[in-house]
Structures are given as structure tokens and as C-alpha cells.
């Protein structure tokens, strides 16, 4: 399997080896016995069966021995797992936020990323948060997984990476249409490299350099935040309305139970992102899109608006 990419790997893989080892032994052994019997006691070779009612000694033996073995398995499983349940007091605290269908990671200094960046040889404590439905954060190379439950307070997991590199991170709890596209990466860096990355506060909010391509930047935001899981650029309807050719149009929405006509303008886009259930677009349902307040800045929304405008051409 994997080489030890986190401190848990050894304990977990020991349990694997112990349990699989015993299992293979029994599987192969019993199968061999069965095949031997099929051959040896075939009715052609052995026309008359010998009647045997049972044997209490054997029953006791094959109750006790498996019992001891499974207790051994239980023990290995327990020791490999208990460290996962005991997060250290100190470590880098990161909030992992899941929504249909992407992850975002928020650092103490306010930085938000869609990949998980962590320093090597440092305890990482992930506070798990889900906006809409159940998700589950799984990093196979580290042998960790924990469900992300909406509304569950103080839900966390921890790990300590021991090798630099990039590893897959999956959502393993079925969460609807794009569940199989809800994955990201963990990037493990040398600590000094990580802290330099962390201290780069210019990344806290988008920088819009002079002469930058605003449309392209907006498009990148829309894609990195996972909007395209529900909104298309080409008019097809996925879960939410398409972005195509909408900007500047007058559309029908339901606001607090009242139908009304409004203009699809920058203000409307902002409200749709921060308070999606306030205006419900005709033909769609409330409760599908969840607020991005705190995850998308106003400056980013301006860029998204530039991108939406470009879809009118």
C-alpha cells in the first residue's frame, strides 16, 4: 500500500496485516480442506459415508481459538485507532468546510483555499463543518476519515503528515449529484515553506493587478468555488439556473412568498450569493444553494459579475 505518509499509517497497517494474514490463512486452509474432501470422499472413491454426529471437544476448540484470534484483531484495531481519537492540545487549527460539492479550508489568519495546505511533522487539527448535507473527509494516504455533519458542534479530526507531497482527498459520504466530483488535494510542505506561504497575506483577498483580465479571474473564482456543479455557462439547467445570457435581463423571482419582477444586476448577484433563499428564481426551489457569506469576498463577487456579463456575448 502507501508508505507512511502520516503518523497513523503504521498502526492502521499493522491491524491490516494482522487481520488479513489470519484471514488468508483460514481462507486458504479451509478451502484446501474442502477441495481435498471433494476429491477424497467423492462417492466414486468413498461409496459409504461414515456417520459422525459431532464432537464436543472439537466444538470447544473451534470456538476458543477463533475467539482468541478475533480478540487479537480487536486489539490491533483498537491500538491503531485510539491515537486518532486523541488530538493533541496544540497544532495548526484549520476549519474544513464542505458543501455540495466542494471543500474549502479556512486558516486562522483568514486565508481560504480549496486545497488543504499543511506543514510536515506538525499536528493538524481540522474542525469539520458542513453547510448542507452529510459529507465525509477522507485522505486515504493518511488513513483518516470523519463525517462532516451539518449542525454538529465541535466535530473534528486530526493528523500529522510525515512526508511532503500531494495526496488525494475525497468526500466519501454520498452527497448528491456531483458526489464523485467532490475531491481535492492535500499539499504537505516543509514547515518553513508552509509558514512562508501562510504569512503571504496578500492572498487573503483577491488582488486585482492593473490591466488584469477580469473576466478570466471571475471565471476562475466560479470554478474554484464549485458553482459549476449547479450552474452552467451554456444554457443547460443542472440544479440551478444557467448563467448564460441572464445578466441585465428582467427575471421573475419569488421573494417572501410574493412573485415579483427584478433586474438581474450586480446587486442581485450579490444577494443571490450571500442570501440565496431570499429571491427564488422562478422554476427553482429554495434550500438548494447555501450562503457563501464569509467564503466569497465582495471583491470576488465583482469579478464574478464581470464574468457573468461576458456570458451575454
Amino acid at each position: 500500500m502507501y508508505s507512511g505518509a502520516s503518523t497513523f499509517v503504521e498502526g492502521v497497517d499493522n491491524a491490516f496485516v494482522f487481520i488479513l494474514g489470519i484471514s488468508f490463512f483460514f481462507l486458504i486452509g479451509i478451502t484446501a480442506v474442502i477441495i481435498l474432501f471433494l476429491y477424497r470422499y467423492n462417492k466414486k472413491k468413498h461409496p459409504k459415508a461414515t456417520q459422525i454426529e459431532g464432537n464436543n471437544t472439537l466444538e470447544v476448540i473451534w470456538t476458543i481459538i477463533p475467539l482468541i484470534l478475533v480478540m487479537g484483531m480487536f486489539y490491533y484495531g483498537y491500538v491503531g485507532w485510539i491515537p486518532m481519537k486523541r488530538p493533541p492540545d496544540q497544532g495548526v487549527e484549520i476549519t474544513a468546510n464542505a458543501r455540495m460539492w466542494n471543500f474549502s479550508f479556512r486558516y486562522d489568519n483568514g486565508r481560504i483555499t480549496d486545497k488543504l495546505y499543511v506543514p510536515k511533522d506538525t499536528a493538524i487539527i481540522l474542525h469539520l463543518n458542513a453547510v448542507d448535507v452529510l459529507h465525509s473527509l477522507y485522505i486515504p494516504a493518511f488513513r483518516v476519515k470523519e463525517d462532516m455533519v451539518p449542525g454538529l458542534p465541535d466535530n473534528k479530526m486530526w493528523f500529522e503528515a510525515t512526508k511532503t507531497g500531494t495526496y488525494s482527498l475525497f468526500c466519501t459520504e454520498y452527497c448528491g449529484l456531483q458526489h464523485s466530483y467532490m475531491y481535492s488535494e492535500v499539499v504537505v510542505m516543509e514547515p518553513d515553506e508552509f509558514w512562508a506561504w501562510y504569512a503571504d497575506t496578500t492572498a487573503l483577498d483577491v488582488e486585482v493587478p492593473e490591466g488584469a483580465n477580469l473576466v478570466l479571474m471571475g471565471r476562475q473564482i466560479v470554478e474554484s468555488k464549485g458553482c459549476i456543479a449547479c450552474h452552467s455557462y451554456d444554457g443547460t439547467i443542472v440544479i440551478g439556473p444557467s448563467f448564460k445570457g441572464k445578466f441585465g435581463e428582467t427575471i421573475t423571482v419569488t421573494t417572501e412568498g410574493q412573485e415579483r419582477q427584478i433586474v438581474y444586476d450586480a446587486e442581485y448577484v450579490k444577494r443571490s450569493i450571500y442570501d440565496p433563499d431570499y429571491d427564488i428564481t422562478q422554476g427553482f426551489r429554495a434550500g438548494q444553494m447555501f450562503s457563501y457569506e464569509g467564503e466569497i469576498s465582495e471583491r470576488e463577487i465583482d469579478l464574478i459579475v464581470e464574468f457573468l456579463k461576458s456570458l451575454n456575448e
Partner: protein
Amino acid sequence: MESPTKPISYLDYKGEYKGILGWIFSTDHKRVGLLYLYTMLAFFSVGAILGLLMKIQLIAPGYTIMGPQTYNSLFTLHGIIMIFIIVVPGLPAVFGNFFLPIMIGAKDVAFPRINLLSWWLYAVGILIVLTSQFMGDGPPDTGWTFYAPYSFQTATNVLPAVFGAFVMGFSSILTGINFVVTIHRMRAPGMTWFKMPLFPWTLYGTAWIQILATPVIGITLLLIIAERTLGIGFFDPALGGDPILYQHLFWIYSHPAVYIMILPAMGVISEIIPVFSKKTIFGYKAIVLSTMAIAFVGYFVWGHHMFTSGMSGRALFAFSFLTFLVAIPSAIKVFNWVSTMHKGSLDLQTPFYWAVSFLFVFMIGGLTGLVLGSLATNVHLHDTHFVVAHFHFIVFGGTGFAFMGAVHYWFPKMFGRMYDANWANLGWGIFFIGFLALYLPMFYLGIMGMPRRYYDYLPEFHGGNIFSSLGAIVLIAGLMIIFINLVRSARHGTKISEKNPWGGTTLEWQVDTPPTLENFEEIPTITGKPYDYN
């Protein structure tokens, strides 16, 4: 004995109603059993085709033959059909109904009308589930587990599916009550508990689980309905509910339900192995006791489905420990079955092929269950393809192989005709190879980290998926051979009237082939043990 008053076979009997009405209004336990069998065969074919379509979708990354919404509703429907319509009622409803009364020397079950009602509830439940597919806002896409809060947020038609499962639950409870009463009150004179054959014993354990566990899922499903229609917050955090509570309630039923599925399968295997070994069962009492132990301990292990849900560490400790304990009675059974073959005179016929291959796949299913029962390894494997492979080995490998064994074992008795053994064996061989090719790679994929319920996957998972998808095609080919052979033989196979074609010792082999309407002209008196080959 050609006397003019020769009692008439249950197949030829003409009662008040004719044609199909003579079946769907018949309270004869044998006809009710066949009603279930036909319903299940039809739906099993649908479920299997859905499975095949999913595997074809997964043969390569990206869009192959369907989009994600279709895929998600397919795995939901596949799960609902296979779990609620096939394996939960499964062996008890078909072979329990048909053979339980005969094997204990009774003329029918205790409440024949309730028995027919069970089938009706089952059929109505199926119809309700089907409406979810064709009406409203599209087929449900929640998975058969209906996990909250997704099942409250999806726009798809979840309610009818849930309500259908609820109705089928009543069918299950009624069958359970019927069997418990039948076994308690209607055993032939002289058939003490420990002279009862093993298949009825496993039906007895199963029936208690059906009675005691099914109401929990009934209530849970009702709560979902109340929550979705009235907006009362039980499970949806948006309404102040607790999604983990839902998981507890769901698995409090659905874990014991796994034993509803597998115990009768163990019963079937305990019948087939002695008959084709021409030898009394080894360790009869050990098998009986382990059956009851599984039925009992099985109630207390549901938490092993939730090791990563956010439960307290202490609860996880206990659930893992109990899960390992429940493995022991299954191991005891395997040892006793293999010992029954020792020094036997093995007659390698189709039912025995199924029984022996059952042993193999059941061992794999059980041993991989240990991997999942252990805390450390479970965290890595939970909700990956490993779990999918594991439960297909148990439910499809275990229960499915036993079901196939049961069909081929009791077929001549039920229909008074024999199937073509060569085709049956060929079908078995192809099916077995396909089965292994389909599910073994999934263990590997799971260990590598591929999550389950995955419409699409990263390129690193491609190799295993190709193998698995090709296996599915082979498996379906085997299945078709088996089914065509059986269906053809039920209508045109060589007639037999021999009472005991396999040389069995239990009571169903002492009655006419096919059984008469009342099974026994005279209720037998039991003096010996059920598997006496002396």
C-alpha cells in the same frame, strides 16, 4: 397406489377461482411461496440489469452510457429492489412458506389468510415504490439508506419509496409472527425442538428478528414522512433535528436485517450439505445454538456502520468488540459444515456445487467483515468500494448462492419436473467466475481509497474497474443460462414423481412430488433425528 381418491397435487387443484386468481387468492402456503418466487425473479432480473448498467457506466472514467443523475437513481433503485424486495423477504418468503410447514409435518402455516395478506402487502408496497419511479419530480436519488438530511433536501420523489418500504415492513412482520406461531404450535407429534431440521430453526431465529426489529424501521420511515410533509424536525439539522439519530434508528433495524438475510441462507446450506454428503449433520446442536446466538448478538452491533459518524470513542469501542463476537457463531457453522463433508460420500450435483461455492464466498465475506469490524481499518475503508464488495459477498454471495442452491435443491419437489443438470452446472460455473471477477477487484479499489456511490473516478482506479465491469458481464451471462434453464424446465422439464430424488431424510422428501394440497394424508409421528442416514 392409483386409487380413485388419490389426493390432488397443489399445482392442479382447482378451487373457487380459476387461472391467475387461483394463485393470487390462494391461501395454500405452497402457492403463496411460489407467488413470492415469481415476483422476486421478475424484480431480481430488473435489479440485476440495473447493476449491469452501473458497471458498464464504470468501465471507463467519465460519461460512458449515462449521466450522474441517472446513475444516482439507478443505484438507489438497485438497492431498494435488492434489499427490500429481494433479500429481506427472500428465502423465508419463498422457501420458508413452501417448506416450513412440510418440514415440520404441518398442513399449512398457522394463519394461512394472514400469510396471503403478507404477499398482498408486499405487492402493494412494490407498486408504491414503483410509483416513485414514474411520478413526481424524478426517481429518488438518495441511496437505499435515505440518509438525512440529503433525503430531505433532494427534489426527487423520495416519499413513495419510503412509504413503499414501510408497507413492505408489515408484510415482513406478519410473516415473522406466522412462522413463530407455526413453529411453536404445529410441529408434528414427536418433533421436539431438537428434532426439528435446521432450515426451520433458522427461520425461527429470523422470524424473531423480523418481529422485533422491523417496527423500528417502520417508525423511522414514518418520521421521515412526517418530517418531509409536516416539517417536524427529527433528523434535518435545518429544522433542529439530528442526522446521526437517523443513522442509529436506520441501522438498529438494518443491521439485524442483514441477519434476516443470511440466517435462512445458513439454514439452506445446513440442509443441502448432509443430503449430498449422505451423512448426518456434524454438530447439530452447535449449529442451532450458533443460529440463536447470531440472532441475539446481531441486535447490538449496529454501530459498526457508523464508526466515522462522530459517535463517542467509548461507544465505538463497544460496537467493535461486539462485532468481533458475532463472527464466532458464523465461524462455528463453517467448521461444522466442512466437518459434515468429512468421511461423507459426496454426490456432486448442482445444489451441492452451490453449497460448496457458498462456503467459499461466505468465508471471504465473513473474513472481510473482520477487517471492517476493526476500528483502525474501518476508518480507512468505511464508505469505500471495500464495503460494497464485502456486503455483496455476504448478501449476493451468501444469500444469493444459498437461494440458487435452494432453487436447484427443491425444484423437483416444487414443480414435479427436473431441470437439465448440464446447463445448470454450466450456468453455475460461469456465474461463479463472473462473481469473483466482479467483486474481488472492488476490495482492492477500496483499499486504494475509491469511495462508493461513485459515478466517476480518478484515472488511478481504472484498472480495477475494467476487471470488475467485465466480471459483471460474465455474471449476467451465467445468470441468463441459469434462469432460462429453470424457466424452461418448470414448464417442459422431464416429469418426475419420485418422492425423494436426492435421498434426503427430512419430511419434504417423504411426501408426494409435487406435494398434494394438504401435504400429508396423515400427520407423521417423528421418532428420530432429522438427518439420520443409518
